[in-house]
């Protein structure tokens, strides 16, 4: 496979990757369908921002955010079932159950652990030990500017955490199970080893939760933009959107079976950090996963960092300290 040169790298040498927006197919069908899939993303983003901007204090709560988040995802699952981008990514009953199991772990065991050692604990500790009055000027900025800054700061942290996972073996061991997904669906962001989900939570979490409405607005960027990373629906995404934000096209390149392509597009909500740091590849891929598309089962995903970590450590030890005890006879 020849691949395409992007900067100093050859993308698509191991597995097919379409590079360049001009080569990516558009939504097919009648004018109404085309219009719907062109305006849906910006319209949903605008509507959600308007809601959080104007909602009365009694409604602008974390509880409402969870309800809206679940409702929005159910709507997107419906769109995946009706208008799948690739038939080979079609959501099946078994995939849905498997994805929901990982989501379930996130909402229960992981959030329980988070209270003691995760972002909740870190936020509490930082708020207690730092004089936040020095940052009061932040709360005087317009709400949307605050939200934008929170979102960008979180995403910057997440970009480097994610890039670190692809470049440092101990972190990669936690992230690898997520790269065994063979198709993209709305809930696939939750699929992975709990240790990775915990670490990514640290990346997303931050210290600015003292601004409730701005934080909720920032969360909306994650919901109404970041969620599309894993969606199996084709949109005619506007040019400005795909320049600024991560899309399912970008993220499919990141999950490609092609090794070089998988080392691109590390951002979560924003793609601009990839553009700034030279890791962005505009394109899309259909064949996803690792080891030629082997599906990793839940029980393997749960223990992978430990079993692989043990195997790696054993190999390292053997290479460094073990010497052959006997020379085989010729």
């Amino acid at each position, binding site marked *: 496979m020849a691949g395409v040169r992007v900067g100093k790298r050859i993308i698509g040498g191991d597995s097919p990757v379409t590079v360049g927006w001009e080569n990516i197919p558009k939504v097919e069908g009648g004018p109404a369908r085309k219009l719907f899939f062109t305006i849906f993303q910006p319209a949903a983003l605008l509507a959600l921002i308007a809601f959080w*901007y104007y909602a009365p204090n009694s409604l602008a709560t974390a509880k409402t955010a969870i309800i809206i988040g679940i409702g929005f995802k159910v709507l997107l699952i419906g769109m995946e079932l009706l208008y799948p981008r690739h038939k*080979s990514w079609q959501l099946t009953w*078994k995939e849905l159950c498997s994805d*929901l199991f990982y989501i*379930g772990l996130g909402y229960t*065991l992981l959030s*329980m652990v988070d209270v003691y050692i995760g972002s909740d604990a870190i936020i509490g500790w930082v708020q207690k030990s730092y004089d936040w009055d020095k940052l009061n000027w932040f709360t005087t900025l317009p709400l949307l500017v605050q939200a934008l800054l929170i979102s960008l700061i979180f995403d910057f942290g997440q970009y480097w955490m994610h890039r670190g996972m692809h470049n440092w073996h101990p972190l990669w061991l936690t992230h690898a199970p997520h790269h065994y997904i063979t*198709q993209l669906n709305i809930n696939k962001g939750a699929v992975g080893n709990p240790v990775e989900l915990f670490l990514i939570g640290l990346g997303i979490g931050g210290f600015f939760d003292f601004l409730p409405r701005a934080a909720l607005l920032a969360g909306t960027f994650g919901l109404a933009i970041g969620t599309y990373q894993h969606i199996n629906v084709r949109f005619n995404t506007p040019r400005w959107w795909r320049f600024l934000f991560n899309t399912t096209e970008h993220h499919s390149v990141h999950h490609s079976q092609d090794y070089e392509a998988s080392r691109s597009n590390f951002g979560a909500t924003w793609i601009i950090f990839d553009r700034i740091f030279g890791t962005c590849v505009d394109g899309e891929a259909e064949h996803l996963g690792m080891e*030629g*598309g082997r599906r990793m089962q839940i029980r393997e995903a749960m223990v992978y960092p430990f079993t692989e970590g043990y195997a790696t450590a054993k190999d390292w030890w053997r290479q460094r300290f073990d010497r052959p005890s006997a020379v085989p006879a010729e």
Partner: protein
Amino acid sequence: MLNLPYIDRIWTARGSIPLEPPRTPKDTFLRLDPLLDAAGTHVEIDGDTLTYVKDNPAAQDKLATFSRGTLRVVQEQGNTRLRYKLTSPALLLVFLAPFLFLAIAQATVFLIDYERHAEEKKAAEGKDKAKDKKKEKEPGPLNAIDQFLGAPAPETLAEKKKREKEEGTDKHTPKPAYILSGIFAVLYLFGRWFEPFLMRRTLRRVLNGQSVQADHASADRMKLNRPN
């Protein structure tokens, strides 16, 4: 899988499909090739009986849910039928998932109790956290642009205290675990009906030749995603 009559209905689908026109077992099993010709699939044919086991099937494999099965060509009242008994570890796991989340909910309830006792003990010893807390101030006014655009003012301390009182002070809640338990129960009931229905439809199409070509094509697509 264990052979447990009655209980095995949880993870087993049984049924039969008429073969039209009547076919020999060899001819019948040949038609199942698009479903069974995939990496990680082990097939054994013994006369009129075919047994298969799929080791970690791909997501789009049409037999992904029923990864083991026995298919037998039988003659009944002058008709040829394919009798099948398919087993699904996935159905069993989804059946068990509600119990797992109920257990997590129960563990959360215990943890909440434990935390409450610990807080009460601390309060009794005079180590109340509230004393360490800095005095909260009323929030400042919104930026002039937000005021002009009509955004609601931030909640006052009194409103915040009222909300926190309504929400409670517990760090944990068993609610998500109870909801997930319910979701998995519904998913199991749906899957127990829907997956055998899909399986039966697939077998019918493949065996009675309605779209063998299409299924061959989808099997080729599946192979692209498989390890050698």
